[in-house]
């Protein structure tokens, strides 16, 4: 046991002191935060850029539609021909020109209205323009049917259907996506950790082989202890790195946001803007706050504690399974270039898990595919975590599935570690040509 601790300590220190590891640990948060700030800044810059659009309104309508707002200013041309207006727009460097011809009625005006621009206009600009005209047209058509503008405003109020589960709990739109994203984040974290630190374990094994220290060490300790010590030491280094990233990343992000004076909400505004626009000016403020409360309530109802506990269980088991495979691969080969053939089949189930998670669990967290992949041991650490935000028991993951999945995972863990340890034990003393799968199978039978 004390030897295992010694090995863990050495592996940890060797990893943590490694120059590229140190650089990555301290540079990554800056890079990540820098990237987020850059994106936020550019988005803001993009929003702030005022578009100037010329308006040549020969019709009697739309006097109040094209008024200068935050994002767009409208310049009205008067008493000039269309050709002159086009020239002026170009020479003044405006974004485009709206032309509303002089026709007898609104329908005709709309029919023959044009938007001229240098390049293809952006979808936002066109949407806005079309919305203005559509809204005016509807108002006009309804007025012809005898509806007053006041009644029209009343009529246009938006509507959301009420959603409830069979148990009578109130449900809200979009919460599934939020849950999936939370689950997905956990799953993705596991995958990244396995690929990065599994690779570290593998390279560390190869290093011991190529530096020929391996035989010196296994004349003192059991190969199994060396392998486990390596895996645990490397993962502790990984956890250290992740902790530094999370803490320093959070601090940097707050500092950055404060310095650049970026509204955190602008980072998440994208989706909200479109829906806000669609529901028009008549958003019920009370309904909105009520909705926010509901979202908050739902998110708090995600079993955070349970999720963290299961995250740790799945993370540890999944990581141990995969990193023992990585260690066995490292032992089987002499140099990193030979690893490709063996690594691909290892990454495959991880990728599959992520895709299944995003496509299947998103749409149907308790569907047969989601269930199958959350039981299959090589994908369950990722897929099960994606399902967990829907809760355990009723409405979420049935308890039997959770228990079965963990039991299968533990069984697989024992089996894989046993196989990996055998390959490792034989492989570390083999030099020369790259073994085939058939030879690896033979190694299992050596005592």
């Amino acid at each position, binding site marked *: 046991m004390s030897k295992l601790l010694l090995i863990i300590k*050495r592996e940890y220190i060797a990893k943590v002191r490694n120059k590229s590891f140190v650089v990555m640990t301290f540079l990554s948060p800056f890079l990540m935060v820098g990237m987020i700030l850059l994106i936020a800044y550019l988005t803001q810059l993009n929003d702030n850029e005022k578009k100037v659009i010329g308006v040549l309104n020969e019709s009697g309508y739309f006097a109040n539609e094209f008024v200068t707002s935050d994002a767009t200013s409208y310049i009205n041309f008067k008493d000039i021909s269309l050709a002159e207006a086009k020239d002026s727009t170009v020479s003044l460097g405006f974004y485009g020109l709206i032309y509303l011809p002089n026709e007898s009625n609104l329908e005709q005006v709309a029919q023959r209205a044009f938007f001229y621009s240098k390049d293809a206009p952006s979808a936002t600009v066109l949407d806005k323009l079309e919305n203005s005209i559509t809204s005016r047209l509807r108002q006009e058509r309804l007025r012809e049917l005898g509806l007053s503008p006041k009644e029209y405003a009343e009529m246009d109020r938006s509507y959301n259907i009420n959603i409830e589960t069979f148990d009578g709990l109130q449900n809200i739109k979009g919460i599934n996506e939020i849950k999936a994203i939370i689950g997905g984040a956990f799953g993705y974290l596991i995958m990244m950790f396995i690929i990065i630190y599994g690779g570290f374990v593998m390279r560390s094994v190869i290093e011991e082989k190529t*530096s*020929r*220290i391996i*035989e*010196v060490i296994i*004349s003192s300790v059991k190969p199994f202890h060396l392998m486990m010590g390596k895996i645990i030491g490397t993962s502790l280094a990984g956890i250290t790195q992740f902790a530094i990233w999370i803490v320093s990343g959070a601090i940097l992000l707050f500092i950055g946001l404060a310095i650049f004076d970026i509204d955190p909400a602008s980072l998440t505004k994208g989706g909200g803007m479109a829906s806000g626009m669609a529901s028009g000016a008549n958003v019920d403020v009370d309904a909105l706050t009520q909705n926010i409360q509901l979202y908050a309530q739902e998110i708090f109802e995600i079993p955070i504690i349970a999720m963290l506990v299961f995250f740790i269980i799945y993370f540890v088991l999944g990581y141990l399974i995969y990193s023992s495979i990585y260690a066995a691969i490292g032992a089987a080969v002499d140099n990193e270039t030979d690893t490709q053939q063996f690594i691909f089949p290892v990454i495959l189930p991880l990728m599959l898990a992520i895709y299944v998670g995003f496509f299947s669990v998103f749409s149907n967290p308790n569907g047969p595919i989601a269930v199958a992949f959350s039981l299959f041991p090589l994908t369950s650490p990722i897929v099960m975590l994606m399902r967990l935000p829907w809760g355990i028991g009723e409405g979420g993951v049935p308890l039997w599935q959770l228990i079965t999945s963990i039991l299968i995972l533990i069984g697989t863990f024992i089996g894989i570690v046993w196989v990996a340890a055998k390959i490792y034990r034989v492989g570390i*003393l083999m030099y020369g040509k790259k073994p085939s799968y058939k030879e690896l199978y033979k190694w299992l039978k050596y005592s």
Partner: protein
Amino acid sequence: MSHILVANEVTKQFGSHTALKNVSLEIPKNSIYGLLGPNGAGKTTLIRIINQITFPDKGSVYFDGELLKPEHISQIGYLPEERGLYKSMKVGEQALYLAQLKGLSKAEAKKRLKYWFERLEIGDWWNKKIQELSKGMAQKIQFVVTVLHEPKLLIFDEPFSGFDPINANIIKEQILSLKENGTSIIFSTHRMESVEELCEYIALIHKSEKILDGKLSDIKKAYKNNIFKIGLETDNQQSLLNEMEGKFQILSQEYDRIENQLNLSVQLPSNESREILSFLSSRGNVNGFIETIPSANDIFIKTIQNKNIDNE
């Protein structure tokens, strides 16, 4: 118990390949035991079994009278043929780590390292990384690490490879002084020169089987073939030769005109040399008379050739 290690009918297979076949050895305490054999004979497999890196399929190994068990690892020191150190780790840290893996406490390991580093005059390497050292320097560290925990049994697999003659000599002296202090040593090699100087006992392994073992001096005696080299000062070499041919079997002859000396190689029927000596001294001045004793190398080659002929 006078044997540090006894192997009984040890057999080891890797798939269809037999690495060791019914090999039995008895390694006396406080001696240097040469484990000889060509490359691929099975020496390394046997050593790995002693170190419990692999395990025999059949047979048993006793260490100091007890069946080999994991606790014995701390009493064995092993310098493998395929050896190396962590390249990016500092010499001192690395030596401490390896010593602790052998069961030494950190303080004790440090104390002993200081002593050995001083003894080999490498004290200023403590904070250097292995990659900054030459191959020979790294080998010295490796040697220190192997002997540091003062094991009862030391196993050196080709210990002199990678050393220049001066350092090889330093290491040889260290090995001899370890033996003086009571350590038993297994010395595996296919280079025979060093065997003559160091080993009291040898075992010869060839194609997975032990084909010869015992005390080196006994083996040499057994392999002696009663050939004597003679240097005789004489004026009348031709008549002498004619006279001798009737009495002795002359294998080769050569006359040195400058020294006026006849050099002969004579095969005698037995180890009895009195007759020829008295004959020679009556014919001239005997400048040289020596029995040719086969070198370990001769024995090695001859035994293996015989074995191959037997097998055919």
